[in-house]
């Protein structure tokens, strides 16, 4: 591997997980050893929480309940808008209500294996342990989970799991869980424990004497840029899938908060791990602004197929059974249509690359419910998936009860994010990162119904316990906007805003975003190669340069100006894209969502290289001229033995 693109620094390690006890006792041991803050002192300390999704909303509410003074920030009008709201499928928990052999250890095992052995055992085990508390908590808040006639909670099997451990609320589980957290947060706002900053976007982190002490934020309505201070800062700002422009993320989802924190010293881990979701509605034209996911639960009853012959443009209903290729059932007889997301996505890409894709541009495969309708009856299918069929109909104008759906993979989730230790603390003391924003517990691939679990685990149960250990040293010396570090950060943000407004070029921020997104999808998407990544790395600096000399942002800074917001986010996406490609290039193996064309088994499956790459790649930012520095955190597997994933 040529090292012209980065330098290698010292290894990094998590020092917080107590390794002297067995894995099942580490979390309780850590909770016991972590120092506490007495209730009277909590009132003297302020915590900033940025983001109000499942992680941020639950953390802000829980910290408020604990007695800390919390300042909560979000860019939308209400905390209820956070994109967790869009999660459809469900949330995993090791309750074993089905008596089908589930346990904390099995959830732990499945998640480590599902993550293709690139996650930390300790974190994953903790996640599995607290999963059961999450369900209890949400039920107590009144989350209307699906229930059986006896009044007990219903479960389903989901996304590559062989046990039924997924709790759900029809196709809107994320919405219902988010509203639970949102309502808890609003309760704390009403109680005066949480101060709210709606429509306010974090634009920089303030680091004083090596500790995170505040943020610079812009009020999106008045345009005012101001500083906010605290004893600790929690980032819960979600993933960066919008680097691809087209993704299932909300239009406003962005990397700015974590990227600016990265530039202030937080390491960015595994940026190249992106999850491509297999069941999305295909792109219909150049104007497309976002992709819509259809819950993976559709694969429980739908059968995926393409015509056996290339360029077969017949109406799908007229293609006889023996001329159809149910390729997932053919290649993976034991898991069939329920293989993990990365595999389902890549196989869809493969058949489309072979020219057997369907739909107007050949980028789609059929998801067929004809068998399910025959077996279960139309009304049963309607009851289970009615809202999804309606959504499909609204977007495409097609009736999926009559003709098969067309689906295609789309960027959905980013496993990478800021590096954190077992306490969820980043490499900047006092800055904690939770939810999708951290590099998290999912390794190289996230299993279905695990994101909601992780977001709520971090926010309700992990962070509120671990942050005490840090705050036990507080309250820290008071700082305000006159501090040189704060003034410098504020000035930097103001300068950037002015710069963006003054360029007055000929291209809109959206046009740069689209160009970057297409480049990333083509060259650093479902399949990457040294060649494609080198090409991307040649092109991205050119895009960056053109952006900073030719972008056009109309309007002014001192009013509601969505174009200006977008421009700032695109600028950060361009920088992040470069790091993603470097990370993808350096990781010359395939694992989970990261598939390198050079590293595959003879059957075309992802081939890991455990000898050389069983580590977390944590990247340190260096000023523009110098390449980033790679810090490796070795991954060791004591409890789940390294093995080639097989879903055949």
């Amino acid at each position, binding site marked *: 591997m040529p090292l012209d693109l980065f330098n290698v620094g010292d290894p990094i390690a998590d020092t917080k997980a107590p390794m002297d006890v067995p894995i099942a006792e580490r979390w309780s041991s850590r909770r016991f050893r972590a120092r506490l803050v007495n209730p009277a002192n909590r009132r003297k300390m302020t915590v900033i929480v940025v983001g109000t999704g499942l992680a941020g909303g639950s953390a802000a509410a829980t910290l408020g309940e604990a007695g800390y003074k919390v300042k909560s920030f979000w860019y939308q009008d209400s905390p209820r808008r956070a994109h967790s709201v869009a999660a459809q499928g469900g949330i995993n928990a090791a309750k074993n209500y089905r008596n089908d052999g589930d346990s904390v250890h099995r959830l732990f095992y499945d998640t480590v294996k599902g993550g293709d052995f690139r996650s930390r055992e300790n974190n994953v085990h903790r996640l599995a342990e607290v999963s059961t508390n999450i369900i209890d*908590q949400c039920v107590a808040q009144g989350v209307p989970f699906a229930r059986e006639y006896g*009044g007990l909670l219903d479960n389903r099997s989901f996304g590559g799991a062989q046990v039924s451990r997924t709790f759900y609320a029809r196709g809107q589980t994320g919405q219902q869980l988010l509203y639970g957290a949102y309502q*808890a947060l609003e309760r704390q706002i009403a109680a005066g424990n949480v101060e709210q900053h709606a429509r306010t976007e974090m634009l920089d982190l303030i680091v004083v004497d090596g500790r995170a002490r505040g943020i610079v934020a812009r009020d999106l309505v008045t345009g005012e840029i101001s500083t906010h201070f605290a004893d600790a800062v929690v980032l819960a700002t979600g993933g960066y899938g919008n680097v691809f422009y087209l993704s299932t993320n909300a239009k406003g989802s962005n990397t700015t908060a974590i990227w600016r924190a990265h530039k202030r010293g937080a390491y960015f881990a595994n940026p190249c791990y992106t999850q491509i979701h297999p069941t999305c509605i295909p792109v219909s034209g150049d104007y497309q602004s976002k992709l819509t996911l259809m819950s993976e639960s559709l694969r429980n009853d739908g059968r995926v197929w393409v015509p056996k012959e290339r360029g077969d443009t017949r109406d799908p209903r007229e293609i006889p059974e023996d001329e159809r290729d149910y390729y997932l059932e053919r290649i993976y007889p034991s898991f069939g249509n329920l293989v993990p997301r990365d595999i389902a996505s890549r196989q869809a890409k493969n058949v489309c690359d072979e020219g057997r894709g369907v739909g107007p541009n050949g980028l789609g495969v059929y998801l067929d419910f004809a068998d399910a309708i025959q077996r279960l009856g139309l009304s049963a299918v309607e009851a289970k998936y009615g809202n999804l069929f309606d959504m499909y109909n609204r977007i495409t104008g097609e009736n999926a009860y009559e003709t098969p759906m067309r689906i295609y993979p789309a960027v959905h989730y980013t496993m990478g994010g800021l590096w954190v230790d077992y306490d969820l603390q980043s490499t900047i003391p006092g800055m904690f990162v939770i939810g999708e924003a951290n590099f998290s517990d999912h390794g190289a691939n996230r299993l279905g119904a695990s994101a909601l679990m992780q977001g709520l685990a971090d926010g309700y149960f992990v962070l509120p316990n671990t942050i005490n250990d840090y705050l036990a040293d507080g309250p820290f010396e008071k700082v305000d906007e006159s501090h040189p570090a704060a003034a410098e950060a504020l000035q930097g943000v103001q300068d950037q805003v002015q710069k963006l407004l003054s360029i007055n070029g000929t291209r809109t921020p959206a046009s740069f975003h689209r160009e970057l997104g297409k480049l990333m999808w083509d060259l650093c998407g479902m399949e990457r190669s040294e060649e494609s990544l080198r090409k991307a790395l040649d092109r991205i600096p050119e895009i960056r340069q053109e952006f900073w000399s030719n972008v056009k942002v109309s309007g002014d800074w001192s009013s509601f100006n969505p174009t200006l917001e977008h421009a700032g986010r695109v600028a950060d996406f361009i920088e992040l894209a470069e790091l993603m490609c470097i990370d993808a290039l350096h990781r010359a193996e395939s694992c989970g969502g990261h598939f390198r064309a050079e590293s595959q088994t003879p059957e075309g499956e992802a081939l890991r290289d455990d000898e050389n790459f069983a580590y977390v790649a944590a990247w340190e930012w260096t000023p523009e001229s110098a390449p980033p520095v790679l810090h490796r955190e070795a991954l060791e597997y004591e409890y789940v033995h390294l093995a080639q994933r097989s879903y055949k």
Partner: protein
Amino acid sequence: MTLTLRVWRQKDPSVKGGIVTYELADISPDMSFLEMLDVLNEQLILGGDDPVAFDHDCREGICGMCGVMINGQAHGPEQTTTCQLHMRSFKDGDTITIEPWRASAFPVIKDLAVDRRAFDRIIQAGGYISAPTGTAPEAHSVPVPKKDADAAFDAATCIGCGACVAACPNASSMLFTAAKVTHLGLMPQGQPERDDRVVNMVAQQDREGFGGCTNIGECSASCPKGISMETISRLNHDLLGALRAGVRPKS
């Protein structure tokens, strides 16, 4: 498709707004309504004009951030969110009038974007179950009849977009409030706070300056999630019961 757009433009709440007309060509019927506005905005930006400000986020009909009045109907001619409305619902040559939600409780921020935080304050008044983290009993300790759980879910699907207020001739937020009162009132966990919740949430919605409900039904017919008028009946039932029981709003 070629369209004539009549768009409400208003720089900020302090100035008077008005309708501005734009012509737009080459619109594909497969575009979403917001993608059509994106096209307009790109043209405006390149022409050095201020683009039309509108709220949006998830663009898959669930976050509740988007919402404009389209030809006098909240979210337009289909019963869905603005982001899920597609241009195939219009004809070539159509004139489309686009206005913001209008209610004094939803002040205009700019153009089509309004401030809906009044909804959050209604939730703050009682739209929750007090269950601090860590206090929860085992999830199966309280069974919930499936019928109740399903009905609670139906009410809980409200996305807080504000279409009910926008469509209501009285600018009443009753359907929004009723959806939450119904959701939590149907769950056994929501019983201890049931009376206080309804009284305080209704008091808060009056305080915010929303109109009163006169059972017209525009709200439910415009609701992208189809929240039923039944929720309002439930709220009324709960409120009158609570008032009889002597519960009074917190000041």
